[in-house]
């Protein structure tokens, strides 16, 4: 067992393999342990790290560190302590949410994200905001010194209401005939200048000079919504439930290592579910996924009874205008696709890690029903 101390508390992790770093994060129902087959599979080409989040497995159980934000901070501290400057992320359920939030804040430290069974919930969100520019480590200089200052889309803290959706719920919006810009007529982006609401100084136009400074990379904040603004089904699905019981309900008994996984779930801190669920009251992971600036692959079992897979309108919201985002709905898979069909999952992971970009991924029709 490997462990480090972060904030005077123990963080358990395991590591295997050599090569480019890949970090794996578990979800609510168990611990690092269910990544063992994935680590074994990847170890000949990658250095794989799997850690236990606060409150889970053999990591510290401080009740004040069980929120989503605390887990995001843990991930950052873990990378720093182990000297990992940049890694590919693979996260399941809660782990996927942690990684998406981290990648949104630190795109320079994340190569790409594979989020499995992530907690993305249906809601009336209105039209999707414009996709942000992809993150580039060395931003290009503006074409001319007098180019207008960049604007970004940012969701201010305490935004009173989500933008009204122009279509009735569940009805796909009509597409525009304006193919020259590829912008549908229902598209009414909410564009906000960086400003005081985000605590980010307004952008100042670069002064005229022969060699202007490169435009700084825009900082995009994670969602910070009001409780109740976006439905949070976790409050009913995680509250008052014993972790081991919940795992028994959603994990197929035929998966390898079933008994040990149940044993790991029993280690979960008593208040972990409630604290974690509540912290999602002010989170809209769909927004975060929409605004992320690195390649993201979302994988969801279409028979997941714990976290319901995203429906088409939500996929449209996430996918609109982006070529670095894809969602795979896995036919027949439940909450743990990586354990239910490890061979297919590992093939997908290897392809995902090696693809130059997501367009290069070739999904196998037999297990991909929808691909966005």
């Amino acid at each position, binding site marked *: 067992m490997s462990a480090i101390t972060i904030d005077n508390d123990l963080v358990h992790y395991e590591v295997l*393999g050599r090569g480019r770093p890949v970090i794996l994060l578990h979800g609510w129902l168990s611990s690092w342990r269910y990544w063992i087959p994935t680590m*074994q599979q990847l*170890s000949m080409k990658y250095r794989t790290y799997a850690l236990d989040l606060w409150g889970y497995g053999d990591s510290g159980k401080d009740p004040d560190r069980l929120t989503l934000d605390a887990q995001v901070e843990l991930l950052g501290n873990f990378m720093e302590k182990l000297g990992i400057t940049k890694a590919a992320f693979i996260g399941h359920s809660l782990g996927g949410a942690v990684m998406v939030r981290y990648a949104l804040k630190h795109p320079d430290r994340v190569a790409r994200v594979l989020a499995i069974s992530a907690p993305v919930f249906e809601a009336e969100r209105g039209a999707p905001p414009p996709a942000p520019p992809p993150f580039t480590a060395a931003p290009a200089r503006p074409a001319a010194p007098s180019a207008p200052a960049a604007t970004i889309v940012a969701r201010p803290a305490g935004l009173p209401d989500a933008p009204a959706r122009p279509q009735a719920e569940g009805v796909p919006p009509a597409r525009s005939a304006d193919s020259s810009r590829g912008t549908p007529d229902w598209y009414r982006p909410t564009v906000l200048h960086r400003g005081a609401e985000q605590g980010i100084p307004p952008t100042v136009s670069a002064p005229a000079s022969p060699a202007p400074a490169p435009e700084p990379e825009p900082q995009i904040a994670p969602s910070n919504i009001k409780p109740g603004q976006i439905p949070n089904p976790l409050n009913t699905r995680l509250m008052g439930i014993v972790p081991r019981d919940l795992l028994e309900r959603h994990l197929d008994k035929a998966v390898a290592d079933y008994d040990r996984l149940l044993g790991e779930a029993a280690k979960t801190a008593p208040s972990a579910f409630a604290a974690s669920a509540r912290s999602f009251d002010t989170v809209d992971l769909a927004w975060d996924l929409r605004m992320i600036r690195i390649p993201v692959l979302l994988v969801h079992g279409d028979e997941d009874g714990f976290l319901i897979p995203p429906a088409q309108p939500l996929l449209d919201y996430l996918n609109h205008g982006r070529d670095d985002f894809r969602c795979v709905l896995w036919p027949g898979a439940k909450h743990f696709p990586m354990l239910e069909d490890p061979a297919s999952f590992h093939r997908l992971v290897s392809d995902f890690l090696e693809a130059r970009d997501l367009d290069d991924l070739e999904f196998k029709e037999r297990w991909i029903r929808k691909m966005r």
Partner: protein
Amino acid sequence: MARILIAEDERDIRDLVEFTLKFAGHEVFKAANGAEAVELAPGVRPDLILMDVRMPRMTGYEACRALKGMDDVKDIPVVFLSAKGQDVEMKTGLEAGAIDYILKPFAPDELTRRVAEILQGLGLS
């Protein structure tokens, strides 16, 4: 749960075997070649030794013969990790005192299963 000594010179494979057996519930010890395995075995007193064939300093066969000549460890069962298709090597390994062999390359879950079977056959599980 058993105490298992692995002798394997390729670090990636050694680490993978260690990881696999450790999280299958065994206590694992590692040697990077045959000579190291011979040195470690008397102190570790493993229930089982998994031995690669081709290793520097001392091959798996040489190490196995050496172990079988040492009174305190001669009864520890040795299993060779042999590459597929090397039937002659398997025969040589068994003649050197090994009780079985596992073909390489192997999937981790296959290794776990084979080790469990071997331990069961030895009455160690």
